[in-house]
């Protein structure tokens, strides 16, 4: 059985995500094949570029309902970068677009007095405990590239925050749905560890660190 399926809906640098899982010893494949996505143990939702374009591409590939159904069945889902933003209700980008609504909250643009996009290595400050964070020290650096950030409605959904102008949620989780704003596949050993944790975490016992 496929441990992790990376959802290919035509956007992003998916090869790097696949290779990063492989380097973590996890069997992962990139696919748009519905049967494979339905059989996989866990799903990764990638995303780069514009939020609305990503949501539209997911719909055009007829994969939006599949994601919802699998999440409802309790399958662990990891959103990466814009993939994390897509987990939320809506984004302010280009006048507003609807997301998957799996985690309550909005996606907002950084203050234009900052450099936008934020590009580079920034730290995470832990706010919760979760198996996704196993062996991840507080203040670890990860690689971020984004102009918008997630503002969860419920504070407890933020497992970690990162400071850029203000503290924003850089890792979120609610039940079997998780998201990371940074690129774990471009964050050296710290990023590979997060991917491995995702592949190995017991979704029913996410309190186990």
């Amino acid at each position, binding site marked *: 059985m496929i441990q992790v399926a990376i959802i290919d809906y035509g956007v992003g640098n998916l090869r790097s995500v696949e290779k990063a899982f492989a380097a973590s010893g996890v069997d992962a494949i990139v696919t748009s094949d519905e049967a494979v996505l339905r059989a996989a143990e866990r799903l990764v939702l990638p995303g780069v570029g514009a939020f609305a374009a990503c949501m539209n591409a997911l719909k055009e590939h007829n994969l939006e309902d599949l994601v919802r159904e699998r999440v409802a069945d309790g399958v662990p889902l990891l959103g990466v970068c814009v993939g994390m933003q897509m987990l939320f209700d809506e984004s302010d980008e280009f006048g507003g677009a609807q997301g998957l609504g799996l985690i309550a909250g909005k996606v907002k643009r950084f203050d234009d007095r900052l450099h936008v996009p934020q590009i*580079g290595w920034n730290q995470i400050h832990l706010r919760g405990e979760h198996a996704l964070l196993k062996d991840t020290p507080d203040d670890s650096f990860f*690689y971020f590239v984004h102009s918008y950030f997630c503002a969860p409605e419920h504070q407890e959904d933020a497992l970690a925050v990162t400071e850029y102008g203000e503290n924003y949620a850089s890792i979120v989780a609610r039940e079997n749905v998780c998201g990371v704003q940074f690129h774990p596949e471009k964050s*050296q050993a710290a990023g*590979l560890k997060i991917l491995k944790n995702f592949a190995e975490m017991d979704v029913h016992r996410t309190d186990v660190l």
Partner: protein
Amino acid sequence: MLAKRIIPCLDIDKGRVVKGIKFESLIDAGDPVAQGKRYDAEGADELTFLDITASSDKRAIVADLVRRVADEVFIPLTVGGGINSVEDVRALLRAGCDKTSINTNAIKRPELVTEAAEIFGSQCVVVAIDARRDMNDKDGLRWNVFTHGGRNKTELDAVEWAERVVELGAGEVLLTSMDRDGTRDGYDIELLKAVTSRVNVPVIASGGAGKLEHFFDAFVAGGASAVLAASLFHFGEYKIADVKNYLRGRGVMVR
């Protein structure tokens, strides 16, 4: 806190790393995968490849190189050199590259910057600007943009061009001082300040690094978000860790 970045730059010819000696002969300096892994282990924050391959199968060669590096090096990769279409950008991104750096072709066809940014996002579109101080300017604070690896002068003002490419959709500016490139006299801080004070995207400083304090000056006096250096690291004068330890000691946030 967001860290300042140190980015080694590797020149690539036909899939191999090359080093220029006195601007003339190129010597083979090894396998890009091995070099990339070495810089990754030494703490490089990203890697930039400047592809100078002149052959007709250039695109296939560089995509293969990106694939091989990206399979083993898990830090961001930027590729520049001859990118002139959305399809070029797409092929590189699919191979595992994160950002593409566009220089001459952004001047020839500015829409390319916008097209790439709209399809793939601004974050993967870097515009590289090669600038040389205009000696006829009365204040000495004007810089001309050059194309084709610095061979051809344009009438574009570097600061105005930087503002323009950000409007077009560039997510980052790679700013090279041709006056300082290869001199080891330090980055052109006046040029950097002129650009960083006018654009709100990150600016990568390039050209002139020779001493540790040059990096500090680029960040603190010049307002750079990242620095690029080639020969200083290739020839082993400094390790990336030396630069980072020095910067940390002077209060600059590095990873």
